[in-house]
């Protein structure tokens, strides 16, 4: 489904962020990417999201090199991927409902579909009662649940969660991971980056360890080893 073929990234200042990375991710997999700060995890996700281009190598999604897509194809590709960020990245002047509806509007969904699906995903993340709250009226955990709802509302093939529990307390961390597990059980591929050993251990899924831009371990048994 997703293939990173010998991907390297050298930034303008000469720093090497990724060095010949090869990864294959199959549909419905739950993959955690671990590594110290500056190891290259975020750069790896940027390559997958096509936020940045690799200096060398290619990223394939369903056999298509995503960095050759035109603007319109890129928008279509991004609609097939849901993003969850550590800092939530909700649009502050939109309510929880509007943040989720925006992702559906961007995908060209009708008003009727939006009216039916948004309350449904909010119910899934247990936030239906706060659908008209603005992000600044929600707690960190609630914001992250809205972000997850936004990421899943278009039923994407992959969810990329970039340290989604980084700003959360243990209770909210547990809840967010449980939601991600539930989404994975329903058939969506999850790519998660985290520092949290507890999270990795509780998942028991594939773990890729990154160090200085290289894959140093790809463990199917779900062990956090750095």
């Amino acid at each position: 489904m997703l293939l990173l073929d010998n991907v390297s990234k050298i930034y303008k200042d000469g720093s090497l962020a990724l060095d010949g990375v090869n990864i294959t991710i199959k549909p419905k997999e739950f993959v955690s990417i671990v590594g110290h700060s500056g190891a290259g995890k975020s750069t790896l996700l940027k390559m997958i999201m096509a936020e940045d281009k690799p200096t060398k190598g290619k990223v394939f999604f369903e056999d298509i090199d995503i960095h050759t897509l035109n603007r319109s194809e890129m928008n279509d590709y991004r609609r097939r991927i849901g993003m969850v960020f550590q800092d939530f990245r909700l649009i502050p002047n939109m309510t929880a409902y509007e943040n989720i509806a925006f992702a559906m509007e961007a995908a060209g969904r009708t008003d009727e579909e939006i009216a039916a699906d948004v309350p449904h995903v909010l119910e899934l993340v247990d936030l239906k009662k706060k659908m008209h709250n603005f992000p600044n009226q929600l707690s960190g955990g609630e914001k992250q649940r809205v972000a997850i709802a936004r990421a899943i509302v278009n039923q994407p093939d992959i969810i990329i969660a970039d340290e989604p529990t980084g700003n959360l307390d243990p209770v909210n961390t547990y809840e967010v991971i449980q939601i991600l597990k539930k989404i994975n059980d329903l058939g969506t591929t999850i790519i998660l980056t985290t520092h949290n050993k507890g999270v990795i251990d509780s998942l028991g899924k594939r773990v890729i360890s990154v160090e200085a831009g290289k894959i140093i371990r790809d463990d199917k048994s779900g062990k956090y080893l750095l």
Partner: protein
Amino acid sequence: MLITKLKRTLRSGFISFWRNGSVSLASVLVMTITLIVISCVLFVGVVLNTTLKDIQSKVDINVYFTKDAVQDGVDQIVKSVKALPQVADITYTNKEDSLKEFRLRHQNDQLTLQALDELGDNPLGAKMSVRAKDPSQYETIVKFIKNSGGDNGTVDRINYDENKVAIDKLAEIIVASRKLGFAAVLFFIFVSVLITFNTIRLAIFIFREEISVMQLVGASAMYIRGPFVTSGVMYGICSGLLTMLVLWPISYWLGLLSDTLGVTVNLYQYYQENWFQLAFLLIISGLILGATSSYLAVKRYLRI
């Protein structure tokens, strides 16, 4: 789907304008100042233009016909000068009226009137005052008159040569003032547009994170840009209306000062007579300025 997208874009733009009240207010106020500057430049242009036209209307040349000129010859010259495209208007005074004018002018000078009576005959010829559309055209008109009647004894004298230096100087001043006025208008408009563009760019800078999130959820560039452009249009319309409101007391005050300043045009009267055109111009300028600035400012952040 196009109508749905347009509806969503407009709705998002209105909501964003309303919810980001302080940013909207700041943008509207800066744009209002910009439009006030443009309006003031426009007012100065009106005053300058009216004053120059006023001065121009006071410049003319007099053509004095000989006392014995044949009336048909005089009429022919008057007719052909009137037909010249450079001529704005002419005033013809026949011999009798010239004498009456002379007597009136010297009514307190008994010695001159007595000398005139002793002559017994009208010593004055007919006279024609010519006003050109532009002071620089007097030379051409004078040449034409000289060619038409100067050599056959119909025209006695033209006062152009005595006033040539003053007329030429005035023509130069008028041309220079117009050029300077135009350059000033362009300069102020350029500076104002630059200020507005930077204000809107700063306002949109606040939303750069949101723009990147919108891109990451797969929104097209047009879909992201639409609400910002709508907000920009709103800034323009609001600031256009606000400027009209602010110009009302300003023009009233300037109108009161017209007499003191010796300006022939009353700006309050001008505002009242031209409010619709002025409002249209300001709102359209604001609208174009707001929409273009927003469009360009968002473009900067659409590079993911």
